[in-house]
């Protein structure tokens, strides 16, 4: 059974999604869709509430507690993007991120990040094809830059809406994926399946992200923030308006194994943060 949470902000969306999931016997669902405006206000207080919960319950991933901001940073490193630099902003972001990844690999070995997959996807360019070598001179493809450039052109020409698919997982990671970033350069036709899909419609850019599994306490809120920031970056770099974020969890998990009363308490606290903010905003 599919679900759709259509909300007003990533924070409100997370609360509504959790309320739906914990209302289910297992706390799990398939085809779980959550949508919110990409330019909605962020609520740092909610990230703090979730971070405190992660610490309180010692929810580690590979020996580390991943704070909401850390999860968001793996999708888009907000601190390295400086829009005031105009045309130079994206180039500096890519350069600085590559440097930070050298340090990251020293600690994490070959463990990749989502943003690195967006900007340095491992490919094997065909050395006989100049376009391949131009796109991936070092055996990595900056998919994000490719689509920003493509979308910029499309805004002023053919207005193709659905030609911007970004793959995150690699075929050898054990997932079925259809799109091959360097091979599938055609702007129309097959393939239409991917992990991040960008749509340019009515001069707004929208983002759909597909997760094969999404844990809602340890990841989802950080995912929402990171994806919103990624969409704002793309919109800013292309000159389009910020549209909607939709996150499809083909398998969603409220992580009730932590203990249903504790999880319900967390959702109540987050909802409380909202209620307080709403009262202050309307006072």
């Amino acid at each position, binding site marked *: 059974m599919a679900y759709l949470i259509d909300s007003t902000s990533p924070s409100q969306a997370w609360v509504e999604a959790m309320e739906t999931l914990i209302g289910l016997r297992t706390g799990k669902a398939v085809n779980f869709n959550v949508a919110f405006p990409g330019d909605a206000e962020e609520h740092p207080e909610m990230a703090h509430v979730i971070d405190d919960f992660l610490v309180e319950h010692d929810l580690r991933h590979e020996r580390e507690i991943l704070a909401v901001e*850390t999860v968001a*940073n793996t999708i888009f*490193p*907000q*601190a*390295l993007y*400086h829009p*005031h*630099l105009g045309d*130079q*902003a994206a180039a*500096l972001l890519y350069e*600085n*991120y590559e*440097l*930070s990844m*050298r*340090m*990251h690999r*020293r*600690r994490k070995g070959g463990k990749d990040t989502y943003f690195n997959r967006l900007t340095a996807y491992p490919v094997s360019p065909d050395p006989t094809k100049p376009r391949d070598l131009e796109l991936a001179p070092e055996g990595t493809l900056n998919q994000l830059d490719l689509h920003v450039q493509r979308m910029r052109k499309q805004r002023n020409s053919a207005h193709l809406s659905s030609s911007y698919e970004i793959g995150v997982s690699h075929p050898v990671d054990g997932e079925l994926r259809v799109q091959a970033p360097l091979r599938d350069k055609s702007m129309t036709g097959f393939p239409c399946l991917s992990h991040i899909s960008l749509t340019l419609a009515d001069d707004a850019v929208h983002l759909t992200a597909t997760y094969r599994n999404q844990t809602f306490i340890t990841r989802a809120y950080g995912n929402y923030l990171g994806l919103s920031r990624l969409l704002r970056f793309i919109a800013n770099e292309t000159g389009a308006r910020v549209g909607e974020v939709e996150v499809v969890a083909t398998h969603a998990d409220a992580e009730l194994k932590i203990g249903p009363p504790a999880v319900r308490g967390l959702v109540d606290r987050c909802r409380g943060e909202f209620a307080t903010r709403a009262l202050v905003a309307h006072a």
Partner: protein
Amino acid sequence: MTDTKGMLLDQLALVRGRDRTHLDSQLDAAGGDLEIDSKEGQTVAMRMELLLGMEGLIRPEDQTRTNLTTVQSLERLIERRRTERGGD
């Protein structure tokens, strides 16, 4: 040994796309230290290694939130590692 703090601030200014004077003003206003994001910390640390010609200066175990998220803590870390290596 060359001025670690000055070099570090130059690199942070570069990472933020700002003039050094802008950063100095922020530093003064904040009482002599600045919080930095952990990704900024990693980037600045890598830039410092390249500038000093000391790749591998920062060890995997050094990359903690405490070490990477303020100017002063990153400066102290780099100073300590440079001293151990007999920098400059």
